[in-house]
């Protein structure tokens, strides 16, 4: 399973490391803050507010699962827990870390649940307020790379379905990213859509490795 995924920083190719969040990293999500000066653009400001509250909610929920012994912080823990109890429900957080010197320690995160029937439920995915604000560094491709990471986990664990909720704002993005005809208030990555997403994830990995070879 690859840890690194491509991102663009100020128009240049770079890489982010996307992995299971440690306990300390999950707790740090609760400390995401809105910038001192919010953008004038109301849509961007709303995205930032949502991201900050999503981060807090994810941190709280993960801790609830952790208290119940149903949160995992690594692929090994996830595999072990499933082997012990195949119908167990588990929560985990994926974190995108920059691989370059950056003032933003966490580029984005996804809060996921592995359900009792071995599906992945994407509760939410958000990028850091500073990534959304695009003030100091312009960082792109974080969302799609996190989505590719989730697809790669599904591939490694033979998980047949990733699903989640879509809102009025996110539905069109999922529709484009998943290359599907339509997305309503929910999306399901399974069957041919799952295969297609895995192929696109593999292509992005190949492109990233080819760029690395040229450097």
């Amino acid at each position, binding site marked *: 399973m690859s840890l690194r995924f491509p991102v663009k920083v100020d128009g240049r190719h770079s890489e982010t490391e996307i992995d299971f969040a440690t306990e300390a990293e999950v707790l740090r999500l609760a400390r995401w803050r809105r910038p001192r000066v919010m953008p004038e653009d109301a849509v961007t400001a709303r995205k930032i507010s949502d991201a900050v509250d999503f981060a807090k909610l994810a941190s709280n929920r993960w801790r609830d699962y952790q208290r119940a012994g149903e949160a995992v912080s690594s692929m090994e823990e996830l595999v072990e827990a499933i082997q012990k109890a195949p119908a167990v429900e588990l929560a985990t957080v994926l974190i995108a870390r920059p691989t370059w010197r950056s003032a933003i320690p966490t580029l984005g995160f996804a809060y996921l649940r592995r359900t009792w029937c071995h599906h992945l439920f994407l509760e939410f995915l958000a990028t850091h307020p500073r990534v959304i604000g695009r003030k100091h560094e312009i960082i792109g491709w974080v969302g799609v790379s996190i989505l590719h990471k989730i697809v790669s986990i599904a591939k490694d664990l033979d998980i047949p379905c990733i699903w989640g909720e879509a809102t009025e704002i996110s539905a*069109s993005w999922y529709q484009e990213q998943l290359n599907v005809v339509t997305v309503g208030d929910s999306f399901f990555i399974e069957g041919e859509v799952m295969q297609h997403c895995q192929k*696109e994830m593999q292509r992005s990995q190949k492109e990233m490795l080819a760029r690395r070879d040229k450097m």
Partner: protein
Amino acid sequence: MKLKSRRVRSMEELGAMEDKSPAVCGPSPVSYAARHGLKLSKNYVEIMRFQPGNGNGAHKFVPRRRKLASA
């Protein structure tokens, strides 16, 4: 869900949709918090009050930390 096409796109193509990116995906924090009995942060609630079209007469988004001009 049906695929639009089977063409495997490059990361450049996928990244080109960045402008459409919602940056946050999932239910709205309000419905999520309500569903799971969690509290929204005070700042979020305060900001939501200033969202347009919520019927309280405030149509302009006012950042929390912006100081209003004194009368």
